[in-house]
């Protein structure tokens, strides 16, 4: 006899006429100024079509501290603390760029030991900044322990900087004409010791996070930015190198004494996923940490005693003219356009070309078609620091 469950071929689902006319609409979400995943005060207005991002509009300016207006009213030395506060995770690189611009106009000859120490300190700061990027990126994707590991090693770098310059985060250590004070041999040994520890640590991070299946699932093939996109939007640094274009100012337009060092430039080769996705940008940063360790070691060998500060006039007055200086910062290529008037104590105009500013402008092109969780991963992968975006 026919069983109770045997009702033959079930009819297809019927759509009620009334629901035919129901119009669905886009929902606006505010990944607002206060949001754990926006690395600061960046507000992204996301128009979502049921969990898929239709389009995203970044709103900036929540940390606009009018640094360029300040630099027009301060004398040349007093601008350095404000340049520190641009990208507060890589303060040394910011100072170096500004100081190099002023020295280029002033024509001072920086002693060799200062030039070598500048490279060493900038590379140490690059490791610290990449550690921060690694820690917060893992935090964005839900893993809390890498954040603690990264900050444990960042504290070691901050301790070294505090012994030399006096501050933990914003140093005012690069001066026009050299450095504020010198490294003693004991501190240099500790740097060498730190490099050895950091090498093992980088391997450990590789096992802990880079090869973790969940991390790879969340970041491979997500937020792909091709090389052409990067050229369109002027993206530089780990974003451009993650897309597979071997462009690093330390090699292509050498400044300082970088031509005496041999290190190679890691690019996104697409081990996991496609070159240009979040994972490749992340792995380029991790490989850069290893390269920076190489540079620091070579720097320690090349160091020989000498003075650290060149002779600089008491009140600095630059000749009339303008200069645009670019350096390779952990987040990308920072450029400073310094315009100086004859006989004035303060810069006439200082425009800072910030790499993160261009990276944020790429988000509207990456966002459509991503799930919100993937969008959080791509925002985290371009490693934004809002002090530099909003200046």
């Amino acid at each position, binding site marked *: 006899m026919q069983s109770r469950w045997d009702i033959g071929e079930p009819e297809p689902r019927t759509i009620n006429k009334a629901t035919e006319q129901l119009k669905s609409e886009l929902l606006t979400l505010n990944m607002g100024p206060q949001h754990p995943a926006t690395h600061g005060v960046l507000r992204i207005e996301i128009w979502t079509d*049921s969990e898929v991002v239709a389009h995203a509009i970044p709103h900036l300016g929540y940390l606009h501290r009018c640094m360029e207006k300040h630099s027009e009213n301060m004398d040349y030395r*007093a601008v350095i*603390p404000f340049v520190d506060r641009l990208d507060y995770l890589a303060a040394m690189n910011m100072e170096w760029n500004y100081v190099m611009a002023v020295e280029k106009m002033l024509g001072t000859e920086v002693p060799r030991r200062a030039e070598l120490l500048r490279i060493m300190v900038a590379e140490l700061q690059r490791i610290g900044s990449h550690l921060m990027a690694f820690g917060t990126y893992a935090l964005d994707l839900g893993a809390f322990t890498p954040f603690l590991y990264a900050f444990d090693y960042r504290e070691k770098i901050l301790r070294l900087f505090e012994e*030399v*310059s006096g*501050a933990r985060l914003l140093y*005012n250590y690069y001066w026009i004409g050299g450095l504020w004070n010198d490294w003693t041999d004991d501190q240099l040994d500790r740097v060498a010791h730190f490099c050895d520890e950091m090498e093992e640590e980088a391997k450990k991070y590789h096992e*802990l996070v880079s090869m973790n299946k969940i991390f790879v699932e969340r970041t491979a093939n997500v937020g792909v930015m091709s090389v052409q996109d990067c050229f369109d939007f002027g993206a530089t640094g780990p974003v451009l190198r993650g897309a597979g274009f071997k462009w690093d100012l330390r090699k292509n337009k050498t400044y300082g004494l970088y031509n005496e060092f041999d290190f190679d430039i890691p690019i996104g080769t697409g081990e996991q996923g496609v070159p240009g996705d979040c994972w490749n940008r992340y792995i380029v940063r991790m490989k850069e940490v290893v390269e920076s360790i190489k540079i620091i070691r070579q720097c320690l060998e090349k160091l020989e005693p000498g003075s650290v500060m060149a002779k600089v006039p008491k009140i600095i007055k630059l000749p009339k003219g303008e200069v645009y200086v670019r350096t390779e910062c952990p987040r990308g290529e920072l450029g400073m356009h310094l315009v100086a008037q004859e006989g004035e104590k303060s810069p006439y105009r200082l425009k800072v070309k910030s790499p993160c500013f261009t990276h944020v402008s790429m988000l509207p092109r990456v966002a459509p078609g991503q799930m919100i969780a993937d969008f959080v991963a791509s925002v985290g992968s371009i490693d934004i620091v809002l002090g530099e975006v909003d200046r």
Partner: protein
Amino acid sequence: MNNFNTPAPHYETGSVKDYFSGLYKGITTTAKGMWITFKYVWAVKPVSIEYPEVREVLPERSRMRLFNDVLNCISCTQCAMACPVDCIYIASEKLPEGAEIKKTSNGQPIRLKLTQFVIDEALCCYCGLCTTVCPTECLTHTHDYEFSQYTIDGMKYDYLAPDVIAWRDRIVK
């Protein structure tokens, strides 16, 4: 699927083999990561510093609160001009004619009588530019960082006040 021409998210649906290899890889890589963290139970000395009981010794050049040893100050206002934030307020007046000229510790004559020396620590950005231009090295950064206040005016330090001068023997060697 959606009528706002938002591109659908692309997900490649793997085969059954991918499913199981993904499952295996997921378990092994997470286990390897957890093993690394588990080793910290016995392999690593604890990192954290119990702050109120254990205080880390600050390095010698550490730039915390400012202190001005007013006995050595020749009120030359170099620091007020070098400060990028203008948070140092100095006032001095002529010494009366007959007064004897005192000397600072490193022998410079004090020709002006310092009447006001106030630093607004709430504005100060602790950059250290003032301590480098001070000719008599009387303005220095001390190492005490524990001075949070309930009111904002508590942070304007008048270095001529007796209780602030009293710090002198603790700070000036």
